[in-house]
């Protein structure tokens, strides 16, 4: 018997009013007609509570797009789960926030694309920055744990200090500075997003200084881009070891991007209990444990720390989901990553300064140096 997962990630809908170029949602998304019903989700949350899961991360798309969100949070809360809402803030009024808190919401994570509307708009593909600022102030006026998330990348890293100062003024309890991860839409926009080595090094110094300055006031967590790492990240804490994700249509995946791996069949919570899926679903068993591991992972002492890295990244970059994550300095596939980094660090190699980005909308995307995330049918 596998011990129960620690957390459930519930992608409530793929609908989203934003079109962020770094979105990690899949390129092929199921439409709203196939979304799970309120009753389906409540059943999943109840099962999760009974299995002893601790956290529920409500995400999407934009979870506020679900009109039954209050009911879902109330159900999760009474199942004993810690509820975390990951949101763009679009669709959140003070009145709605109050009902969510009353229903038992424990924590809100609000994302910002940049520190000003002019810069945020072309990244989000929507004029939502000023609204987000208003939402941040409303959240802060209530007694609820509050994290602001900044996704950082090639386009905004050069003014990271300014962005941190902007967040500081909004006074969250926590700030997350997350380098974009190259899956889904972010992978198709990688050359516009992957920073240079110099940008990365500067950002680490800036984050270090901010962490010290804000100590005890705002906790800073950061995620670094693994292409520059020596060893891979322990993606999802290891395949099917501690997290389970349910997509809007009810398919259960070991991680956000697992749908890209050919040949995996995902079981659905409409057909099976969460516990059965966790224990028995072939997709979960595929890369669980160590028997699937190739060399050099098989004999590596780090295999119990990083579990061979990310299976999706291995597939996306080498074509083989059972390869060592190619970001690993010991991986045979590392040359693929090195070639990408070489290009990103060449003086004229990548998009550093796309055309003036003041007022572009997704409708104008044919002229854009990147592609915007679009909603499913």
């Amino acid at each position, binding site marked *: 018997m596998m011990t129960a997962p*620690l957390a459930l990630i519930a992608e409530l809908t793929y609908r989203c009013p934003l079109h962020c170029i770094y979105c990690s949602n899949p390129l092929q998304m199921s439409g709203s007609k196939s979304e799970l019903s309120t009753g389906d989700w409540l059943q999943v949350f109840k099962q999760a509570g009974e299995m*002893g899961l*601790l*956290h529920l991360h409500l995400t999407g798309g934009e979870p506020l797009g679900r009109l039954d969100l209050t009911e879902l949070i109330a159900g999760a809360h009474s199942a*004993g789960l*810690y509820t*975390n809402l990951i949101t763009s803030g679009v669709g959140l009024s003070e009145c709605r926030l109050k009902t969510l808190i009353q229903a038992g919401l*424990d*924590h809100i*994570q609000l994302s910002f694309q940049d520190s000003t509307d002019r810069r945020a708009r072309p990244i989000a593909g929507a004029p939502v920055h000023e609204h987000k600022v208003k939402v941040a102030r409303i959240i802060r006026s209530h*007694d*609820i*744990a*509050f*994290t602001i998330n900044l996704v950082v990348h090639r386009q905004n890293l050069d003014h990271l200090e300014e962005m941190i100062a902007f967040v500081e003024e909004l006074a969250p*309890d*926590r700030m997350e500075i997350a380098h974009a991860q190259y899956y889904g839409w972010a992978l198709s926009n990688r050359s516009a997003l992957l920073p240079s080595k110099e940008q990365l090094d500067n950002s680490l110094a800036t984050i270090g200084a901010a962490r010290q300055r804000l*100590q*005890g*006031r*705002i*906790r800073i*967590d950061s995620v670094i881009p693994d292409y520059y790492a020596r060893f891979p990240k322990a993606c999802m804490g290891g395949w099917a070891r501690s997290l389970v994700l349910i997509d809007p249509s009810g398919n259960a995946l070991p991680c956000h991007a697992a749908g890209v791996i050919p040949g995996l069949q995902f079981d659905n919570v409409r057909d099976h209990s969460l516990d059965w899926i966790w224990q028995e679903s072939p997709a979960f068993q595929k890369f669980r444990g160590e028997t699937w591991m190739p060399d050099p992972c098989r004999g590596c002492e780090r295999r119990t720390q990083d579990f061979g890295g990310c299976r999706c990244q291995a597939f996306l970059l080498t074509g083989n989901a059972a390869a060592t994550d190619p970001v690993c300095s010991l991986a045979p596939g590392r040359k693929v990553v090195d070639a990408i980094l070489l290009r990103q660090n060449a003086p004229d190699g990548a998009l550093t300064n796309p055309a003036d980005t003041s007022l572009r909308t997704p409708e104008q995307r044919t002229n854009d140096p990147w592609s915007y995330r679009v909603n499913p049918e």
Partner: protein
Amino acid sequence: MAQPIDASRPRLARGCRLRITNNDNDAVVLFPEGALRLEGPGRQILEHCDGQRTFQEIVGTLQALYIGAGHAQVREDTASFLDQLQQQRIVDY
């Protein structure tokens, strides 16, 4: 911020709560992106962090429970435990 003083009244920070299950046997403190399993003195300290009791009172309770450890040691350990959790925004005082 620094370590708590005698008059501090530590409490769990916003968004952090204790979850006690399995007939009072398992205790974890849940916070936005994680959880800490609590055992022994750690659990006893956090169970007293209700925003009412002072640091001085909490130390007194722990000293009574851990007589063999020496008063100064218990005070020091309690202070550094709370200081660590404060830096992680799990406890406020």
